[in-house]
């Protein structure tokens, strides 16, 4: 949609701010073609409103509520499943579903990619930037794997000696 059409349509539909509407009004004075398009929208809207008004006027609503009430009484009570489905359907509108589905899709792709990477036989890469533990009893062991050149890292820490000492006194 061209920007002018977008503005004109929003102006016609009352979707512009007061200041934006003023700008469009000024432009319309100098742009007969745009003013003509605006009149076209007005005319169509008027015709639709009149058509609906006439249709509603012609229709009798005598006994309408009674028929609704009868229909409501005949309808079987709503099950729990239907209630949940109705709420979910109401909540999961398309505009809400797509971003969630897109995020879930990206997450799934990432998991698959990671799975492929890990499944190829390589070890998990891990970098320990720092390691702190209390007391003096602690160690880091690198245990070579039986197959291939990988290794398993074991970080061993003991209870702190200071704490043990404090408890013994």
């Amino acid at each position, binding site marked *: 949609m061209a920007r002018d059409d977008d503005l004109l349509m929003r102006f016609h539909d009352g979707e512009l701010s007061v200041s934006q509407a003023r700008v469009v009004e000024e432009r319309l004075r100098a742009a007969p073609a745009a003013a003509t398009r605006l009149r076209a*929208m007005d005319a169509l809207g008027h015709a639709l409103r009149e058509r609906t008004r006439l249709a509603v006027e012609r229709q009798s609503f005598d006994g309408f509520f009674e028929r609704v009430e009868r229909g409501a009484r005949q309808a079987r009570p709503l099950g729990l499943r239907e209630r949940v489905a109705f709420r979910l359907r109401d909540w999961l509108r398309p505009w809400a579903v797509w971003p969630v589905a897109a995020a879930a899709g990206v997450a799934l792709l990432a998991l698959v990619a990671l799975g492929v990477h890990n499944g190829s036989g390589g070890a998990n890469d891990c970098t320990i930037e720092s390691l702190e533990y209390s007391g003096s009893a602690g160690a880091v062991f690198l245990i070579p794997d039986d197959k291939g050149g990988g290794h398993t890292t074991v970080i061993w820490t003991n209870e702190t000696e200071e704490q043990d000492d404090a408890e013994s006194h």
Partner: protein
Amino acid sequence: MAPAEENTAAEDRDLVERACRGDRVAFQMLVERYQKRVYGIAYGMVYNADDALDISQETFIRVHRYLDSFQGSSSFYTWLYRIVVNLCVDHLRRKSHEATVDYDDTLQHTDTSELQPSAIGDPVRALGDRELGAELERALRQLSPVHRAVLQLREVEGLSYQEMAKVMGCSVGTIMSRLFHARKRMQKLLGGYLEDTTPKEA
């Protein structure tokens, strides 16, 4: 005009709460408050008085059935309009032998030549013309259900884009695109006929 006023919304909430507790009078008031609007939307989409009345009736039966599921996070009328629009769309899909034209909402539109109203003339005079009424209906029948719905919700019910997006379950951008398409299509379909009925200048 959309019943967007605060007091109307508060009254609706009160009636809904009472109807949920089994207050028959409150439910009757809700029905009577909205029956003409609901019928107008239904008629504007299905173009058959009997079908529109049946759909309106079914709409309120569903309202009664699901009333305690209504969360109150949106306006009652937005929820109500969503039910009637969905019922109309289902009805029209069942009767899919009717010629409908769908458009891709994501397309860019730069051709506005069909939005020329020179042929429309005075809408009040034109509306008085029965033949024009028939042409209007014929043109509307060629729109897809969602395009009929956006025209009805915007032009007749006066809903904002935001409200329409809630009713239709789509984005505001999609609503604008659908409105643009629907109007453009109507101008194209009505243009030739209306040219003939517009008084010619001497």
